């Protein structure tokens, strides 16, 4: 009677590998709005509220990964069990048994799904064997939820937290839909206590959530998707067809694209979490304002860098402390190679990680003389020198991202060759004329990034003082504005592939 096509609706809701429920899609906003309404109805019932959240999380994961939902459930059951066993173990040796079991289980599954073919290919390439590659599909978000689960186990082992008695709570921690597919990689110690808290949103929370969701949409759809489809991808697909200046702009553009894509996703995830009453971990803090590579890693993908700092770098560093500086450098190189390897099992990503390890190691080696030099010439408080440090750090980071983006080493080297040997600065004017919207978006993207961070705080305070109707109008306007520049299809988030 109403002309509802139930087949079409079920198609929309069923697993489709090519159509996960992307933040920013109209279907997502429609379903999330429905979830919020029901969720608020159950605001007083903790059990009801959390059950709804778990159900919705299961749906989001099923929609993106189908049968792999069972793997997620298995992961939650196993790690809950390991945590409980570790908590009940009377001796350190007993705790260690559960730690080893958990590491074998979690890293074993990750290795099977994510790294198997890389190692088989490496064995073939080095002529150690002639093995056939496996036809394996990687479950979405496995790198993220594996690391979340491992942090729970490791924190219990390090006596930073007690294991939870509630499987319901633990399951929500692992499957929480805002951060299941691409993080932030939250810590159980911070997340679990929030489940039992009363659901209450202050005006400031709502304003903050709206601001994050709006900023996330603008970053992802207006900036990242637009510059990627209209400029960056074209250059990186065939760098030799473009001049050096265009290649350089594509490298800068890609740094901005990657930041807007991933931090846009994180902003939306954190904003959505906040509307559901959960404060998720901060993931980005104006990374291109960093004055050194170590500063950059305190601001970029914070939930991953702090994870590796706590569970990889620190144990290695303490274990190798007798080697003094050499111990620190070894720990840094291993940690950053793992950063690369975490992203993707490929030589280009390993090299990207190694590059950052080398940058960090170099920073450590010159730390002493640098400190004396800065003191002697009073450079610590110099704004001009600060800008110079930001410029150098940004260029090192953008350089490293060439290996992150390029399909292979040859293509990365082509980009560099064009920049060095075929720069043609005069082409810049032509670029601005023929890629005007791209140029404007890149310019404004960086401009907003370099505004003082107090600007964002002021916006949140301003929104929090507004009437709810005005807030809704602003949100609608932003969604409309974003839809005007949206490419035909919403582009998948870059970090979904990791």
């Amino acid at each position: 009677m109403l002309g509802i096509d139930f087949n079409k609706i079920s198609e929309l809701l069923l697993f489709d590998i090519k159509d996960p429920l992307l933040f920013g899609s109209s279907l997502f906003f429609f379903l999330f709005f429905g979830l919020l309404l029901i969720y608020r109805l159950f605001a007083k019932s903790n059990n009801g509220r959390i059950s709804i959240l778990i159900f919705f999380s299961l749906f989001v994961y099923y929609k993106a990964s189908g049968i792999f939902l069972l793997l997620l459930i298995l992961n939650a059951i196993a790690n809950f069990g390991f945590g409980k066993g570790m908590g009940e173990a009377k001796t350190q040796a007993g705790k260690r048994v559960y730690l080893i079991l958990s590491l074998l289980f979690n890293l074993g599954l990750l290795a099977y799904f994510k790294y198997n073919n890389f190692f088989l290919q490496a064995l073939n390439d080095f002529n150690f064997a002639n093995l056939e590659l496996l036809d394996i599909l990687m479950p979405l978000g496995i790198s993220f939820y594996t690391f979340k689960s491992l942090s729970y186990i490791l924190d219990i082992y390090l006596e930073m937290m007690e294991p939870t008695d509630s499987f319901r709570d633990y399951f929500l921690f692992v499957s929480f839909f805002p951060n299941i597919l691409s993080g932030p990689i939250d810590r159980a110690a911070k997340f679990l206590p929030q489940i039992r808290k009363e659901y209450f949103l202050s005006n400031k929370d709502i304003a903050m959530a709206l601001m994050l969701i709006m900023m996330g949409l603008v970053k992802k759809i207006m900036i990242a998707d637009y510059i990627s489809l209209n400029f960056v991808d074209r250059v990186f697909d065939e760098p030799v067809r473009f001049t050096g200046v265009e290649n350089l702009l594509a490298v800068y553009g890609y740094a901005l694209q990657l930041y807007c894509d991933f931090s846009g996703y994180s902003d939306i995830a954190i904003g959505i979490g906040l509307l559901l009453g959960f404060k998720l971990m901060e993931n980005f803090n104006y990374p291109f304002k960093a004055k050194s590579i170590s500063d950059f890693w305190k601001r970029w993908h914070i939930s991953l860098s702090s994870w590796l700092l706590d569970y990889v770098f620190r144990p290695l560093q303490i274990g190798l402390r007798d080697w003094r500086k050499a111990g620190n450098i070894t720990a840094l190189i291993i940690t950053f190679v793992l950063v690369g390897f975490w992203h993707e099992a490929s030589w280009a990503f390993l090299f990207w990680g190694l590059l950052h390890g080398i940058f960090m190691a170099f920073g450590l080696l010159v730390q002493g003389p640098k400190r004396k030099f800065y003191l002697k010439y009073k450079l610590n408080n110099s704004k001009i020198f600060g800008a110079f440090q930001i410029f150098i750090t940004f260029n090192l980071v953008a350089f490293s991202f060439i290996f992150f983006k390029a399909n292979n080493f040859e293509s990365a080297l082509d980009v560099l060759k064009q920049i060095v040997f075929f720069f043609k600065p005069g082409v810049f004017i032509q670029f601005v004329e023929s890629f005007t919207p791209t140029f404007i978006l890149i310019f404004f993207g960086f401009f907003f990034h370099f505004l003082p961070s107090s600007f964002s705080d002021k916006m949140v305070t301003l929104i929090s003082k507004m009437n709810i109707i005005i807030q809704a109008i602003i949100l609608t306007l932003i969604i409309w504005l974003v839809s005007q520049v949206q490419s035909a299809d919403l582009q998948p988030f870059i970090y979904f592939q990791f």
Partner: protein
Amino acid sequence: MISERLKNIICKELLLDTKSVEINDETQATEVPGWDSLNHANIIVAIEKDYGIRFKGLEVLKCNNVGALQNLIDSKVSK
């Protein structure tokens, strides 16, 4: 209670003036100027050298503030 000896070792390693730095049981490494993840190991080595003790890796990793580090030192010294 943080001993003067421990405070002196930390300040000497970080080139800090002991009078200008407040360190108590609850103080975390990140709250002390210059005590970052890179020179954390140097401070641990300096403590081990000064007290003539040896920590296990896991014992150090479990310390989440200076108070816990002081307790660990006390337990090693009294053995």
